[in-house]
């Protein structure tokens, strides 16, 4: 392409990008067409985010960008910039993890990382979310084992713990 007056950021062909993931800087060499889900899994070995429908429907690939849930199958790696990415590998020792274990919030486990990240973001941003708000957020994720009862119990239990800490 001809020269544009003032130069915008441009990526063409393979290029190194620096991603802030779980508090650390990670370097990856990607094309502009690289999708974040694939970069995380294939380039950086962070396989916690799962490829499910890869169509934005199932939520198995959910990651947090600056604390908000996003579906990594619909994001270009080059668009992330300086945003902080949180994957399931960075979600250590949280109430939501403990609650999923204690309340059997998973069966086959494939959808679990997506549910955990979404629920974690919800409880961080809206610790007093009511049932309708929780339903609204968690409708973004599908569990093909239909283990929704355990997931709901786990989220409610984690919410109680989060609220106790706020007192």
């Amino acid at each position, binding site marked *: 392409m001809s020269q544009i007056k003032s130069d915008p950021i441009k990526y063409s062909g393979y290029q190194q990008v620096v991603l802030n993931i779980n508090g650390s800087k990670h370097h990856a060499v990607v094309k502009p067409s690289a*999708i974040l889900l694939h970069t995380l899994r294939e380039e950086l070995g962070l396989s916690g985010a799962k490829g499910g429908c*890869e169509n934005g429907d199932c939520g198995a690939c959910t990651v947090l960008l600056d604390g908000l849930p996003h579906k990594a199958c619909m994001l270009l790696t080059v668009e992330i910039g300086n945003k902080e990415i949180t994957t399931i590998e960075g979600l250590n020792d949280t109430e939501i993890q403990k609650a999923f274990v204690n309340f059997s919030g998973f069966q086959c486990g494939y959808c679990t990382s997506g549910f955990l990240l979404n629920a974690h973001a919800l409880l961080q941003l809206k610790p007093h979310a009511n049932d309708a708000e929780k339903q*609204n957020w968690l409708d973004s994720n599908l569990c093909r084992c239909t283990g929704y009862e355990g997931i709901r119990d786990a989220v409610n239990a984690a919410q109680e713990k989060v609220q106790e800490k706020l007192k």
Partner: protein
Amino acid sequence: MGSVNGGQKMIPFDFEYYKADTVDQAYQIMKTSLEENKRAVYYAGGTELVTNFRKGKDHADIVIDIKGVSDMMAIQEKDKQIIIGAGVCLNQIIETLGDSSLSHVLEQIADHTTRNALSIGGNLAGRLPYKEAVLPLLAVDAKAVIQGEEGRVEKPLKEVFNKTLRLKSGELLIQLKINKSDVSYYSKRETEGTKVDYPILHMFSTWSETEVFVGVSGFSSLPEYQVFDISTLETNNVENNLIFKAFKDKARACHRASVIYRQHLLKCAIEDLLLEWKGRM
């Protein structure tokens, strides 16, 4: 089908990616691309483009990311107007506007996580036929701010939206402007099964003392709307109602719902709407 790497589907072509800082810069990149016979697309949330790229339903040589353009990423209040950047995601609009007809419609589109990315401009300008966000915007006579050959121009949305957003090649929707005061509204959204799905009927209506706006999405092949004189609307028999007569033959059939089922849902929604009026008048 896209190429596969480790069982995952990749975008099966290369493109150049630009992150624009200003509207002028984004438009200039688009213009240069067009002059060089390259297909360029404006990119905000990516929810539709990335999926279509991967499925081979769309292609681009140049992707122009507008998320660095501050005018397009903010919601401002000015002179009793709310100015919404076309790149603003649906959840940000819902949280900023609170209880409003626009928020009510937006919170029914896609799912919560997707709404953290899906932009209002993308909903209007994308290829998906539903474009539900347009219904409340048309109802309140929103204005569209567009960057084109003549620079930045403001036009009534009704002038540039007829079933789809009718922009000239390369033009960029920058902002949407609506009046701050909200209106009474009615909205009925039906899907084939679960709530998070495309609509088989989304009927949205607002009314004044003299006129009624009714718009539908998911019912016909593309969104349609009509404004009716309130005094001409039969309120006892839905079959004779002008709203039903105006829309019923536009019903489409698809794997989600037949023509007859969509017409039945429309009839039920109009009955509900009439009850709503009676309750308020």
